[in-house]
């Protein structure tokens, strides 16, 4: 029986889908059998991030509605052996699936795969409740902004109310330089406020845009910093203790600045 992990955030645009895609590819690259479920019904995007948008025949609502078998709806990833996608429906809305159906679906998928990662829609309505219904663990993604952290706090409260205890936090789009200049909340600030465990910190990286354009998640880019951050998160999901990567981009220069007291 595999592990079902939901990736959620509350606020839109903080990187839930990007995180889901990268964790999926990262885990599969290490030889694990993984399925990604896009639970954002009506606004599917995970297929595009993985470059699988042209291969969709059936979707999640076809499986829950009994119009096809699970195996028929699962799409094999192009590059990554062992990675599968269960796409969301683009034409239906969030009421097309119930929480019970989602729970059953997650259980069925977890029978066959080691990791099932559910990409949750933004918001706290039915779509959110569906996405978390079958999850064993939760990852909360946020960015170092007031609105995103506030929504993350709300989500953490709702997850705990739904018996999903100890969600793990991913801080995305982190800008080391701005934190040094005290113009962005630090990792410690955010952890202090949300009082959750940190799973990883992903630096702001233009390479994410490039990889999204191509439909090839950045985690496979050996040279990119965000890719390294996602690879570290993958290791931590597997239970390995990996220290936080050095987020300081221009090492010598900032050291020098600190020495002369400029922060």
């Amino acid at each position, binding site marked *: 029986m595999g592990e079902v992990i939901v990736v959620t955030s509350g606020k839109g645009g903080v990187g839930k889908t990007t995180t889901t895609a990268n964790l999926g590819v990262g885990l599969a690259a290490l030889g694990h059998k993984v399925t990604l479920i896009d639970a954002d019904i009506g606004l599917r995007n995970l297929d595009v991030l993985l470059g699988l948008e042209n291969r969709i025949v059936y979707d999640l609502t076809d499986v829950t509605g009994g119009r096809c078998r699970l195996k028929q709806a699962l799409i094999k990833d192009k590059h990554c052996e062992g990675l599968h996608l269960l796409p969301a429906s683009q034409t239906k809305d969030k009421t097309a699936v119930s929480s019970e159906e989602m729970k059953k679906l997650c259980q069925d998928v977890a029978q066959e795969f080691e990791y099932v990662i559910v990409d949750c829609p933004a918001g706290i309505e039915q779509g959110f409740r569906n996405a978390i219904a079958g999850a064993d663990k939760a990852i909360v993604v946020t960015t170092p902004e007031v609105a995103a952290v*506030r929504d993350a706090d709300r989500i953490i409260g709702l997850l705990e109310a739904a018996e999903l205890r100890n969600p793990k936090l991913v801080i995305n789009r982190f800008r080391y330089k701005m934190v040094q200049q005290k113009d962005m909340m630090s990792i410690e600030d955010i952890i202090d*406020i949300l009082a959750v465990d940190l799973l990883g910190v992903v630096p702001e990286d233009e390479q994410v845009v490039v990889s999204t354009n191509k439909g090839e998640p950045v985690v496979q880019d050996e040279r990119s910093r965000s890719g390294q951050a996602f690879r570290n998160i993958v290791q931590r999901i597997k239970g390995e203790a990996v220290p936080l990567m050095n987020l300081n981009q221009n090492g010598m220069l900032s050291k020098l600045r600190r020495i002369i007291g400029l922060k």
Partner: protein
Amino acid sequence: MLEFLTRLFSRESSSSKDIAKERLRLVLVHDRAGVSPQLLQALKSELIKVISNYMEIDEPGLEVNLESNDNQVALIANIPIKQMKRLPENIISGP
């Protein structure tokens, strides 16, 4: 270079991250307590009603807020008084 100079000469009292953190802290006090603006408004009007029995207060100047310091949340009310009311003897000295 300009950045260097402004940083050197300006003595900013609080950085934008500190402002963000403080705002977040306050907003989360409300979120976590589940205190809606309506509830706060209702509390305010009842406070006015009770206090008005004893003194004349400046209603538009009345401020009621939840505030946090460290791990404690406090209800802070700032109630400007215009004038004391002349109270009947028995209220002042008790029954």
